[in-house]
């Protein structure tokens, strides 16, 4: 059964590679938004160090939002989605594959560039490590929850803005624990608790969200 997950991942990655510009744009969006904050706040190092986790996380949420409308839209337009929905394997598994592929092209690059951006904010090595780890662990949850929003808004006019309206409030726990992990590390409390909760959210989101998205997709396809 999980074969379907892997084949969907492989297919989506291949498609994504044909549109590398999209991946790079989302990544640059992330970099630019993060770099704008010091310009708005001022170059005070202590303040920036304190704000960095929140800023990077909010920017990561927004960057993830950017690529979500495309998650199902192309497959919906060319009829692939309909075929996948009619196929014998559960649609939830297909969506799981799409979510993982989405994370690989959107969340993973964000996590990889986070250390560089963290240096701009003069984060300590520990804080950098935890922040990168948190983004690495937390972004799959963003892709998972985002898939529900993408499925619900599929084919609607103004879908992109609507999508962020639906999904951003649901991202709040990830934001709190993601940024909180860094704060806890800096203050000496240790961020392990936060990171494990973040991991729990990711597991729950990857486990459940695809099935909710699949239900939403079936409604959109009716």
């Amino acid at each position: 059964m999980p074969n379907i997950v892997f084949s969907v991942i492989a297919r989506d990655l291949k498609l994504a590679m044909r549109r590398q510009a999209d991946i790079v744009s989302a990544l640059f969006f992330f970099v630019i938004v993060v770099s704008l904050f010091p310009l708005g706040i001022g170059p005070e190092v202590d303040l920036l160090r304190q704000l960095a986790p929140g800023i990077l996380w909010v920017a990561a949420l927004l960057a993830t939002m950017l690529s979500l409308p495309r998650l199902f839209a192309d497959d919906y337009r060319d009829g692939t989605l309909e075929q996948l929905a009619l196929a014998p394997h559960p649609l939830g598994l297909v969506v799981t594959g799409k979510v993982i592929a989405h994370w690989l092209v959107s969340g993973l690059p964000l996590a990889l560039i986070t250390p560089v951006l963290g240096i701009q904010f003069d984060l300590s090595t520990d804080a950098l490590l935890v922040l990168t780890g948190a983004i690495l662990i937390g972004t799959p949850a963003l892709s998972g929850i985002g898939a529900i929003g993408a499925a619900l808004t599929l084919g609607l006019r103004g879908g992109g803005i609507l999508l962020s309206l639906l999904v951003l409030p649901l991202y709040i726990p990830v934001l709190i624990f993601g940024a909180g992990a860094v704060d806890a590390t800096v203050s000496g409390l240790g961020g392990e608790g936060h990171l494990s909760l973040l991991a729990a959210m990711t597991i729950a989101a990857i486990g459940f969200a695809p099935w909710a998205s699949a239900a939403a997709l079936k409604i959109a396809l009716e």
Partner: protein
Amino acid sequence: MNDRFNLYRFAAPATFYPLAGKMIPWFVAAGILFGLAGLYIGMLVAPTDFQQGEGYRIIFVHVPTSWMSMFIYLVMAFWAAIGLAFNTRLSGMMARALAPTGALMAFLSLWTGALWGKPMWGTWWVWDARLTSELILLFLYIGYMALVAAIDDPRRGDKAGGILLLVGVVNIPIIYFSVKWWNTLHQGSSVNLTKSSMAEIMLWGMLLMALAFWMYSIAIALARVRTIMLERERHTDWVRQELAGDSQ
């Protein structure tokens, strides 16, 4: 067997529409009675709170609106679950009819919370766990209303809205606890809106006011669902009759 039949009969718009019309005046009357009693006790009879002075009287609207804002979301999620499980037409309409009232309740809860916070905390807004969660709840209401408004096909809108409500209701406890944890981590305010040491008379006032808001919400939701029904079922015979007969 007979029970099931009756349940379906009442869930049919043609039966529910006149029934709702008959129920509205009763809920309005009950709401006015509870409201007057609650206002009398809360505003005229209840003594002052020795810690918060007369400013505590805001809780007579703040607490009921907060309760209603949360309760209405749960009721909407309940209708959503029914609608998705049994494919009933009424469920989606009920959820739609409740949403604006729930959003207004959340807004009122925030508004009164701010007016309470200014004299008590010294600022209009505190990132207190409850106020923050209430704000997020308002966002969830707005998201639901925006989604159902964006979908032209009403049945698809009902179902998509239903899924969003269920996802939301699963997330609300997670959001609430994460906000609470975030709040204690950042040493939020230690003052609470509701005091456990409240005098009994104040509790009565609050309870009556909560009942008043409950009745109000039911009445307004029923009124709204009637209009939605006419719109949805405009091609059916009962709506034609309803419109032909001089109903206002």
